[in-house]
């Protein structure tokens, strides 16, 4: 029963975040690229002011899997690094926090593009 509740929260949180994106696409004609940029930026800011953290605690993967979770990694990483090493952390922490996402996106993206055949439209 407990595991059901966890997955219900994940599903709800992830679903709601994606629905917000869909409403923005349908109502404002924002392109997917703009949606991604807005969600990352918002995720970073909301984490910094302490709003996204509780959402992650509630929704777990439902909040970390959407691209706003990437912003959560960036903001958490930079604040942790500033705590640890001070001023230099401003430039090191963000990318460090999101390193797994960035490196895997570059490498898997590159390999997948290499093996895929361009489709004829």
């Amino acid at each position, binding site marked *: 029963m407990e595991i059901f509740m966890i*997955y219900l929260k*994940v599903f709800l949180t*992830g*679903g*709601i*975040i*994606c*629905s*917000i*994106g*869909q*409403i923005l*696409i*349908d*109502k404002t004609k924002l392109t*997917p*690229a703009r*949606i*991604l*940029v807005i*969600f*990352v*930026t918002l995720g*970073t*800011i909301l984490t*910094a002011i302490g709003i996204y953290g509780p959402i992650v605690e509630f*929704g777990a*993967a*439902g909040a*970390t*899997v*959407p*691209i706003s979770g*990437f*912003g959560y*990694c*960036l*903001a958490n990483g*930079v*604040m942790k690094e*500033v705590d640890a090493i001070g001023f230099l*952390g*401003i430039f090191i*922490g*963000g*990318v460090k926090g999101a390193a*797994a*996402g960035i490196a*895997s*996106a*570059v490498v*898997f*993206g*590159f390999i*997948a*593009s290499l*093996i*895929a*055949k*361009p489709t004829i439209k």
Partner: protein
Amino acid sequence: MNSNVNMSNQEYSDFVDTKAKKSNLGKNILLAFVVGGIICSIGQIISDIAMNYGVAKQDATCITTIVLIFLGAFLTALNLYAKIGKFAGAGSIVPITGFSNSIVAPAIEFKTEGYILGLGANMFKVAGPVLVYGITTSVIVGFVYWLIKLFI
């Protein structure tokens, strides 16, 4: 068919609107909600499996991100992700798999223009702006956080 070829821009734009397929907002939101929820649940399953093997929570989140990015990239390479995107809309764009898709899709499209300026450069058509704004925001956040810590 409307045979009037002397329409003003406004008239033409209205004409196009009448011909365009009405998008059903309620249905779109529901589909985005369900598909987004499913992708996040898959992420939670990956994370739970990793933690079952004794991986720390933060590392499990990292592993989840890597696996989902892998899945997004290869589903795009197999031309399957576009099929999901057709009906899922934001449900397939907003999750991290959509970020991965945004890297692979233009890279494949521009592959014919060469491996450096075709494939290599176009990988970052969408991911580039995401990183520019994400990292810049994180530096601003870090700077403000550093300033606040300085005075408290």
